[in-house]
């Protein structure tokens, strides 16, 4: 999928500038892109490293786990098809907790474990179960409270108040999750009838 996008971006870009006589711009662009990427990397790297460091403390002290425990009761309502004591719920909770704290890549292992637990109680192994879909909707809506890379990049570009976007971001991400879950719920209800 990403290959198609990549192909599309490059081919359209080069062909279009060929026809509109902007090829010299593209030539410059291609040659200077590497340093632009490096700048981007260097501006987000320190914050990622710092934040994963802080969150490691939260993980080892059991804070992340505690936070996950807090959301578990809500989860068992969202996933009626999963038994209450199933380990999948714990992994889902950890995944959401890590996502919230802006640890996208640390959240992935929890997500993968949650999926394999859900697969164990799935009766059609090649077909997505209802619980899996609910989990993925929750996951892709991406409930993020601390968007680490966004903050890092805002700081790097000299924002007067880098964190001013946190609250609007939280509201948007919350609405996105609710919207997704509602549609998911409606579809589930209709399928049951």
């Amino acid at each position, binding site marked *: *999928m990403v290959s198609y996008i990549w192909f599309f971006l*490059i081919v*359209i*870009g080069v062909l*279009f500038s060929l026809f*509109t006589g*902007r090829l010299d711009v*593209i030539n410059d662009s291609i040659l200077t*892109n590497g340093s632009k990427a490096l700048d*981007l*990397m260097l501006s*987000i790297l320190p914050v990622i490293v*710092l934040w*994963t*460091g*802080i969150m490691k*403390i*939260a993980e*080892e*002290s*059991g804070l992340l786990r505690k936070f996950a425990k807090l959301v578990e009761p809500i989860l068992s309502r969202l996933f009626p098809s999963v038994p209450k004591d199933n380990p999948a719920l714990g992994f889902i909770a950890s995944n959401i907790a890590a996502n919230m704290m802006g640890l996208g*890549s640390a959240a*992935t292992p929890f*997500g993968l474990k949650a*999926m*394999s637990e859900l*697969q164990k109680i799935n009766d059609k192994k*090649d*077909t*997505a179960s209802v619980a*899996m*879909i609910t989990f*993925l*909707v929750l*996951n*892709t*809506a*991406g409930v*993020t409270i601390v*968007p680490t890379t966004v903050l890092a990049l*805002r700081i790097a*570009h*000299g*924002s007067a*108040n880098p*964190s*001013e976007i*946190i*609250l*609007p*971001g939280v509201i948007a991400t919350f*609405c*996105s*999750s*609710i*919207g*997704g879950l509602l*549609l*998911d719920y409606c*579809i589930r209800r209709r399928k049951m009838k």
Partner: protein
Amino acid sequence: MNTLSKIVIPIFVVFVVFYGFKKKVSIYDAFLEGAKEGLMISFNIFPSIIAMVFAINIFLDSNFVYEVLSIFRPILEFVNIPLEIMPMALLRPISGTATLAIMNDIFINYGPDSYAGRLASVLQGCTDTTIYVLALYFSSIGIKKTRYSLPVGLFADLVGITVAFLITMLFF
């Protein structure tokens, strides 16, 4: 509101450090271990950042977006949406790195505190890359029939993106 947004992260950091200290975790070592992981993560995403910055910049520098989307310019200007945001909103469910590269471009051209810069920030933070996550998670356990998951995931993105537009207008 301003002070509130400035206080969230410091409070959070103090709380985490304090809690770790209280639970007798060797917080300094834990931090170093986590930071090392963060460094590895950064190295791992570096190739994809180079790839995406490369492709996105060719695409943006060709002016294709401006020429094609300028048909919609009157409508977009009417609802106060900068043209540059459109490719970002469209690519958001597909590639997080691609939109990161666009956001970087918007910050360079307009600054992070411009309307476009703030909108880009909220957009980047508000949803995850649906298609990537679906592909990764389903393929990890060998699911072939994904049923209604993609439309629902994309619907959630659409809601998030719409709210991001509205909320940025209201807030700033």
